[in-house]
Structures are given as C-alpha cells and as structure tokens.
C-alpha cells in the first residue's frame, strides 16, 4: 500500500501535510506522535472516514482514496472499541461477514475461529456490556480481522486499559498480527508501545512526518531533536557545541561534554539530548550538580539535579542519593546526541 503525499485541512488548519509512506505486505507500522500531531487524522483518512484534501492512496495498483469506507474493506479497531451494544459478542464478530453476504455455515465457522484466536469462546453469547474492558478489546480485534482485511487500522487501542492489561494485549496484538499476515497500521502516543510492536515507526509532528525508521534506529539515533524529545530524551539543552580535533563537545551545565553529532555542522548553536538512563553519577563526571529530588523505580533510582549553571538534569543512579548532595554526572559520548545548527 502506498500513501502519496496525502494532506488534510480543517479550514485553515493543516492537520496533515504531504505525508508519503509505503507499507509492505504483512508489515506492522506504528504512527507515533503527541496528541494533535495528526496521527488519528491520518488513520481516518486511510479508513475513508475523512476525505483527503490532497494526495492519493493506492492499494497495490488500485486507487482507493475516492472509495467510501465500506468499499475499502479494511479492518479497524477503535479507541473506544465501538462494539454494537445490542448484539452478542458472536453477532458483533459476524457483522462484517453478514454484510459481505457470506453463507450462514461459513459465518459460524469463521466466527468460531476468530473467537478461538482471541480466546473468547466462553463469552460468545454475552453482550459487550457484560464483559471486561480487555475482553471488549479482544472482541473489537476479532471483529476487525474476521473478514480477512488486507490492512488493519488500530486507533490507540490500548489507551483505555490498565497498565497490566496493556502489556498483555500488546503481546496479544503482536501474536495475532504474526498469525494473520495482514498489514497493520497502529496509532499510538506511547513510544514503548510503538517500539515493542512495530516493524517500522513513523513519527508525526504538526501534521508532518519527522522520521521513518525501525525501532532500533529511532531509539538510538532520532533524526531531529524534537523526535529525540519524544523518544525519551528527557534532557534537552539548547546550547552550543565546539569541535576539538575529531571530537564534538556540547556545553551542558557549564561543562564540555563529549557527544555524537547527528546531522551536518561542527561548531555553533546546537541542541544536545541525553536520556535519563544514560546520565549517571561518575567520579570523573564533567557536570557538577546538586540533587533536588530522587525517586525509587525498582532496580534503580531516578533523580533530578540542578547544575551549577542552573539547568535541570534528569539522571539515573544505582544508589540512593540524598537531597542536596553534590554529584558529578556524565554520559558515554555515544549516548550524548548533538544536533548542530538546531536551536
């Protein structure tokens, strides 16, 4: 499937600007971005629930952006599940097959298969209101995939579940995707979800594609500083950088910190980004700071420190540090990303 420069305006607002993307057969794509970045708009355009104001969408060699949603044949899992409250679980799943005019015996066979796939055989005759949120979610998935769509669209399907169920369903979605071999486009604002589920991640911001890459690429080397910010680089500094020989240093917290350049340019204004995970107290750490708060997160402690020059630093430590204690913080040069020219 291919999106060719699709755009969508709401009046003067460009919710989606010139988005292009090719989705391979069986690929799992995550659309990742903060709320209001246009990811749901993109999904609704794909589904046909919104019309495009520019560009085109192709499935194999067939243009589909002019088709009504019911003619596209995609599966969709809605954020609130949108199960038909007056139909039983089995009838909900059968709905799409009934619309296609599939024979009755065939319908019951395929509904039974889908129920087995999402492990809900026992709930078949219940109404959606009588089952739990996680089960409703499974019904929504079964209903979307039972018709055998070439593409399944998921709109933040896990955002209404509690943390434990979310992890379970994440595994479940990946398992089902692997079994079916259809392409999946998955909208989320949760970078962990995107990293763990997707083959490729599309980062959207302000209606534009900021970066497309594998989870590994995005995690290690965000292309721009705002992608970095979104990928968990909580320490973001507008600063300057200097080249010394072949090495690049950024000025952070009054000290020069060795880093890795992302993009062109050597010296001058720059943005530096470090994950809290990578910033730890070290005897020779370049940044002098004072601990302001510390919290326990299982294996490690995470804390906030203030540098001598006033910046806030989010760091990780293996030992509890007292508030007010002086620390020297540092990070491996490969984990300090410097975006020269950005400001």
């Amino acid at each position, binding site marked *: 499937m291919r999106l060719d420069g699709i755009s969508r305006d709401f009046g003067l607002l460009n919710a989606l600007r010139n988005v292009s993307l090719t989705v391979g057969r069986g690929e799992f794509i995550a659309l990742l971005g903060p709320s209001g970045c246009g990811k749901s708009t993109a999904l609704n355009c794909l589904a046909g629930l919104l019309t495009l104001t520019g560009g085109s969408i192709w499935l194999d060699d067939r243009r589909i952006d002019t088709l009504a949603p019911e003619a596209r044949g995609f599966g969709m899992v809605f954020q*609130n599940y949108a199960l038909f409250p*007056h139909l039983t679980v089995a009838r909900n799943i059968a709905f799409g097959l009934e619309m296609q005019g599939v024979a009755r015996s065939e319908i019951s066979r395929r509904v039974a298969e889908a129920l087995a796939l999402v492990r809900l055989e026992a709930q078949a005759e219940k109404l959606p209101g009588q089952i739990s949120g996680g089960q409703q979610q499974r019904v929504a998935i079964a209903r979307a995939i039972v018709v055998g769509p070439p593409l399944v669209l998921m709109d933040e399907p896990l955002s209404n579940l509690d943390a434990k169920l979310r992890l379970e369903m994440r595994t479940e979605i990946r398992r089902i995707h692997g079994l079916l071999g259809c392409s999946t486009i998955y909208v989320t604002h949760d970078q962990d979800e995107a990293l763990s589920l997707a083959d490729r991640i599309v980062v959207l911001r302000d209606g534009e594609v900021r970066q497309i890459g594998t989870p590994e690429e995005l995690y290690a080397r965000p292309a721009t500083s705002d992608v970095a910010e979104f990928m968990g680089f909580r320490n973001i500094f507008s600063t300057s950088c200097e080249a010394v020989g072949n090495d690049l240093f950024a000025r952070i917290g009054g000290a020069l910190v060795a880093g890795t350049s992302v993009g062109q340019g050597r010296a001058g204004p720059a943005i530096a980004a470090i994950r809290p995970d990578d910033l730890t107290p070290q005897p020779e750490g370049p940044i002098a700071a004072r601990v302001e708060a510390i919290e326990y997160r299982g294996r490690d402690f995470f804390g906030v420190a203030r540098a001598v020059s006033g910046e806030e630093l989010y760091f990780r430590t293996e030992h509890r540090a007292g508030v007010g204690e002086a620390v020297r913080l540092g990070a491996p040069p490969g984990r300090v990303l410097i975006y020269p020219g950005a400001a």
Partner: protein
Amino acid sequence: MNAVPWRLRLQNRGLDGVTLLVLPAVGFIVALFVYPFLYGLFLSFAPMQGPWFANYKKFFGDPFLYDTILTTLWIAVPATLVNLLVSIPVAMRVRLMAHPRLLTTILVIPITLGTVLVAEGLLNYLGPRGWLNRALIFFAVTDSPTRLVHNYWGVFLSLVITGFPFTFLLIQSYVTGIDPSLERAGAMLGARAPARFFRIVLPLLVPGLVITLSLSFVQAFSVFPSAVLLGAPAGPTRVISIAAYQAAFEQYDYSMASAIAMIMAVVQVAIVVALLGARGLVYRGPATGGKG
C-alpha cells in the same frame, strides 16, 4: 449494646434532613393531580340518575359517544406516527450539522405559539380564500379550492405542526445519544448507509422511539382546540374531549363528563402500557460502544 442510632440507619437508606425537601413536590402532586383525579373518579360513579355505573353504561350504549374514541384514535395515531417518521431522518441529519442551533430553534418555534394561534393561522392559510388555495389555483393545479379546513385534514395538519417540535426534540436527544463511532465501525465492516441505519441505529433507537411515541400520542389524544377550530366538531372530528366538554358545559352533567375523562385516561394508559410492554422485548442498554 452497640445498636446503630436510628438517625444513621435512616441515613444509610438515603433518608436525612434533605429528604424533607421532597414534601412541597408531594403536596403539589397530591393537591393538583391525585386529589382531582380521585374526585373525578368518585364523581363519575355518582350519576345524576340510575345505578352507580350508569354513566359508563350510557357511554358505551350510545354510538354518538363511544365512537369518539375511534375518531380520536383515527386522528391522533396517524398524526403521531407521521411526526415520528419525519422526526427520525431530520434528527439524523441535524446530528451531522456543525451548527444545529438555528435549525432547532426554527423547528421548535411552533411549540411556543400555542395550539390556538396555530389553528387560527392555518384557518387563514389553508382556507378556501387562503394563500395555499390561491397559489394552487393561480398555478392551475386545481380549478376550485381544495377543502383543507373544517374537516379531518385541518385537525390532522394542526396536530402535526404543533406536535412535531415536541416529537423532534425528544427524538433528537435519543439520536444524539447513539455513539457516532458505532456507525463508523459499521461502515468499516462494509455496511452501507441503509444497513447501518436498520442494523445499528434503529435497534438502539427503539426504546427512545417508544417513549416518544407514548408521550406524543398522549398529547395528540387530548386534542381539543384545533378539533373545534379547524375540524368539524359535530361530525368527523368529534373527538372524545369534545364529548366531555359538551357533557360538562352544555348539559351540566359533571358526573358524565368525569366518566368520559376516566374513559379517556384508560384508553391512553392502555396504549402507553402496551407500548412500554413491547419495549421490554428489545435491547435497552446503553447506546455506546464500550469504554471511552
């Protein structure tokens, strides 16, 4: 002894000082509804002459009287159904509008005018010398005025016009209560607009339709001003309220009038109970698609 104080026990059942605030409403209902109703009931069993059931015997023995039930139903039921069937598509459309306020306001104006004003207006508009007939004759659609007042159609149209806003507002609230994502889900599953309406929206709307039907019907069944002003009160539109009026204020037989009012109430209650009973046969849960 560790008995819970009676005050706390009452509180656990939801009774405390605030509960006393219900008293004015109870007094109001008793004084203005329960007492008059019971008074009328007793009055209807105290006829001016004959045994205690004489009024009812007279009513059901005289076609001039008992036919008013059918006459009223013959006007009220079609008018209610027309209002309902027109309201549904209008409400479905208004739901999709970005600024439905203006349209809703226009549609609701008739409710503020009152039945008498609407009846007078229709009399002028639909009458033999009214605009409608003049226009029809001018455009040579007919060559003589079409009779639309002082007969069945006058009352029917008046009921439709005054009843529509009420029906529409109720239906609109039920239609907007249906989660729009359900229809989108239907579309994604291949359902075209008719299938989406009949398979998803309509089943979820039925309970609301029944309530609307009941309330609109009760309103239409007690039609009086337009039946007199726009109808033929001696014949085809001699509705049951006219019979009650004549008994009370032309024959001064309050007992008979009370009996007719009681019969009117029984017919209304019977139909509303039948409708609500039928509602029990369909899905009645929330019209939303899950959490969210």
